[in-house]
């Protein structure tokens, strides 16, 4: 009797664990992509871009628009793979440009102001984008018609868990984007300039780095990753609306802080850990606590390790 009482929930836990991990990695992949943009912008400007979640939302809508344009009643115009790639590319490009515009109008004029000013400007941009989308596209939910591109039954049965094709797509796409980003930052001239600006903006300028251009690129890349995250969210969770960026932005921010804000691998790690934690909370405790988890994680990190898991100690300016 006794062992059965203890054993039963334990058995369920073990039986569902692999599936929860897959679900957590899917969610984590999205959070990681959002966190990257937060962290990169913070790295070069020490600015928390609170409009970042709304850029992600715009990406989800651009992806939706492209999807609908290429899937009329008669069925998809191209092979599903091509449509998905187009959705990602158009959303990334659109969001990248949106990021540049936000930087030019909302942050650049405040570059030399006290740090609170661009922060308030960021919140203003966030409200502006949300309301602009609500005004033009209404507050209705839209649904990605993913089933027209990827059969819901498609996937691999791993025996202990099922990896659906949509989840595999999300995880693989996110990882590919992260590898490309890592290459860009570590190996290219632009990446080196970005790191130099993040370490010491004036010293980078003294080496001849065009700091403004580096900041523009940073916003472009960070926002493009958020756009990709928006499309991936639409593909796997299907429902998009104008307010989805608020919670996602906070989760991305939490993931960035968890990993160590300004640290690129940290943002990836933080995203996956947060996705797993949230999924476990939903699966093993209650869905009610889904959003609580992220903020509990944030509070614990800020209390115990404010620099995050991989973050460097706050540099001392001499």
């Amino acid at each position: 009797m006794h062992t059965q009482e203890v054993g039963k929930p334990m058995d369920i836990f073990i039986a569902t664990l692999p599936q929860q991990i897959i679900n957590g990695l899917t969610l984590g992949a999205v959070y990681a992509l959002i966190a990257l943009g937060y962290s990169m912008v913070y790295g070069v400007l020490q600015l928390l871009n609170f409009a970042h979640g709304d850029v992600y939302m715009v990406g989800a809508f651009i992806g939706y628009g492209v999807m609908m344009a290429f899937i009329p009643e008669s069925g998809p115009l191209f092979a599903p793979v091509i449509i998905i790639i187009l959705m990602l590319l158009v959303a990334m490009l659109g969001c990248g440009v949106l990021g540049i515009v936000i930087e030019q109008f909302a942050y650049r004029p405040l570059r030399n102001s006290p740090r609170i000013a661009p922060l308030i400007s960021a919140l203003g941009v966030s409200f502006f984008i949300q309301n602009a989308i609500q005004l033009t596209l209404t507050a209705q939910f839209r649904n990605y018609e993913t089933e027209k591109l990827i059969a819901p039954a498609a996937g691999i049965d791993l025996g202990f868990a099922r990896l659906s094709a949509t989840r595999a797509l999300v995880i693989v796409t996110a990882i590919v984007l992260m590898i490309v980003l890592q290459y860009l930052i570590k190996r290219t001239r632009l990446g080196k300039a970005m790191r130099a600006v993040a370490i010491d903006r004036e010293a980078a300028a003294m080496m001849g780095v065009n700091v403004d251009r580096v900041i523009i690129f940073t916003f472009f890349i960070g926002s493009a990753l958020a756009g990709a995250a928006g499309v991936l969210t639409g593909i796997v969770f299907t429902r998009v609306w104008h307010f989805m960026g608020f919670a996602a932005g906070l989760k991305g921010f939490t993931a960035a802080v968890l990993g160590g804000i300004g640290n690129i691998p940290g943002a990836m790690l933080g995203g996956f850990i947060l996705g797993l934690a949230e999924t476990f909370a939903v699966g093993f405790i209650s869905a009610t606590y889904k959003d609580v988890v992220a903020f509990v994680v944030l509070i614990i990190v800020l209390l115990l390790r404010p620099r995050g898991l991989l973050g460097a100690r706050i540099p001392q300016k001499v």
Partner: protein
Amino acid sequence: MSNNGTKTTLLRLEDINTYYGPIHILQGVSLEVFAGELVCLLGGNASGKSTTLKTILGIVKPASGRVVFNGEAIQNQPTGYRVERGMAVVPENRRIFGSMSVLENLEMGAFLRHDRDGIKADFERILGLFPRLKERLHQLGGTLSGGEQQMLAMGRALMSRPKLLLMDEPSMGLAPKLVEQNFELIQQVNQQGTTVFMVEQNANMALSIAHRGYVVQTGRIVLADEAKNLLDNEQLRKAYLGR
């Protein structure tokens, strides 16, 4: 390009006025550096010497006056343009990129160059000049000792193969022995053909290696002479110590 006897002017500041907000920092500063020279600008704290250097580099824009480099008025050009045309700086406190490797720091010095072969040749030359850096190529810049960081900052600046090397307070934050080494190095670089303009508080040290010197006090040039004359100039001591 103007000629003064056989000497060619590499850098000339003409009546520079610079403000930080309402504060008039540089008040009509004019000076000249000839090709091949080692010139120092002496002055105490808040005398305007760092601002002069930043004006030359384009980090600070003057309200009026001209900066002429290699015959071209560049006061309205961004820093990158000036670096591309042959300026390089060893900043105050060195400003090494701490979380980048020694190799990457050196590569940053050649950021605007595209001549692969030339960069490679300079890279080898600089590692020959600083064998210590060669041993630590893949170490992070921030883990180097103060003396090694100074070598790295110098090597980084030389990676752009500058016509004019700007040194901002090379004695700052270094142990006395390292200061001496550092000045010998500056002299060596100058003797190998690089023009050097140095901003420094340590007047004796700077004048011991410089050809000529200027003294700046509250934003004005108050003295300009050959280094050896300045060394025993009574007025220099006054200007220098008179705060």
